[in-house]
């Protein structure tokens, strides 16, 4: 399928995306990832204040059939988590790049963004 990839995000190879405004990064999973998972029923998010390392598992997304680890694409401190996901985990399927966001991070190493995939490169990776 041809996935919907916004122009203002970068992706990790593991299908997480990050959108940066100043030094705050918002993280979620791609449209490709939510389609693979199908019905998301629960998201386990990191606590606010936790220090994340780029590439380390930091959250879990559960579909009806499976639990999948989410890896933080960037390092830094968690400043916010999406309060909507507790009652409405289906937002991850419906609006993966918008209302289905997972958490926000204050970047400790902004240069990590250079190693992430630009939209065209991620699109190539998923064969879209």
């Amino acid at each position, binding site marked *: 399928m041809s996935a919907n990839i916004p122009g203002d995000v970068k992706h990790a190879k593991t299908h997480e995306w990050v959108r940066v405004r100043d030094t705050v990064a918002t993280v979620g999973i791609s449209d490709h990832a939510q389609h693979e998972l*199908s*019905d998301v*029923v*629960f998201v386990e998010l990191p606590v606010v204040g936790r220090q994340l390392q780029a590439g380390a598992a930091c959250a879990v997304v559960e579909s*009806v059939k499976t*639990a999948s680890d989410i890896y933080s694409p960037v390092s830094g401190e968690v400043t916010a988590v999406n309060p909507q996901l507790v009652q409405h985990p289906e937002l991850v399927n419906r609006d993966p790049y918008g209302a289905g966001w997972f958490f926000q991070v204050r970047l400790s190493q902004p240069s990590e963004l250079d190693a992430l995939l630009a939209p065209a490169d991620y699109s190539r990776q998923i064969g879209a």
Partner: protein
Amino acid sequence: MLKRTSLFAAHQKLGARLVDFGGWEMPLQYSSILEEHHAVRTAAGLFDISHMGQIVVRGGGAPEFLNRVLTNDIRKLQSRQGQYTLMCNERGGAIDDLYVYQVEAEEFLLVVNASRISADAAWLNQQLAAFPGRSTVDLKNLSSDFGALALQGPKTAQFIDACFSSSSSSQSLAATLRKNEIARREFLARPVFVSRTGYTGEDGFEMVAPAEITPALWAKVLEAGAPFGLKPAGLGARDTLRTEVCYPLYGHELDEDTTPLEAGLGAFVALAKGDFMGRSVLADQKARGTAKKLVAFKSAEKSAPPRPHYPIWSAGPDGRPIGRVTSGTQSPSLGIGIGMGYVPPEMSAANSAIAIEIRGKHAPATIVPKPLYRKS
């Protein structure tokens, strides 16, 4: 090499996500497990269950033979009626759970789990070899000759007869086929068995048909049901639906080391009917109690869903592991985690607080009476 039913091409054409289910390449879902689940609860869903097995037992000795190997009392069956039953080993452990239908006075159709076809046929043949009246019993495993469909949902009665419109003299299935009854119809001049049974807790019909005509029957049912919201439904929804109504799945709630009484299926064990395989162990369990008991539970708060094999803990600061989840999921109808599992009988009372260990954390849950979901 995975086995495929005669509907494989149909599943591919519908864009099904295919998975390995006990050696069969089967549809997990076509659109979404949640959507297919809701379709069955509110309108209708159609499942390919052709991987299941059919064993036909005929002859004057058939009723006695079957009553010796099955736990329920086959003498209760009227003609064209079926019953849920189990087949146990000498230890009372379940070899399979199944439906047995009396098709004619001396002809019985057993519908068995896909994963147990070989084990069931081997066991039945072994028991038959030792049965004194074996010359009056003919047993055939016809599983590879048949396909099967499960049509489930509150609207199915509105279009089931449209699927078999060619037989002008037949009575309406919707009006005359009662729960657990089986009827013979024709489709493309071949016989089809239709029973009013199911594995979802909804009204519905299961159809057993020759494998060659099953694709045409599948297409006909989808066409007849489309105006009523009928959707094809896969094994993912089949599992969430049966878990909500606490129906056991062999390999989870039942296995060769678990008895029907431990699984709460005493209603299907006719201890008074006479001797049958496993009876002495089951009678002993009935009198003295069992070592474990199957309970149903609901998560007490929004949490990750309970899943098979997760440990069950007693609640509180002195909590300890007391059992394991056998089936678990997020309930699409209830919006909360649900499941079943085995605990010691003394810890099985309804309203008991327990905890499900999920990734090292204890998610609070409560033991509740079965079923977890009931139509209001």
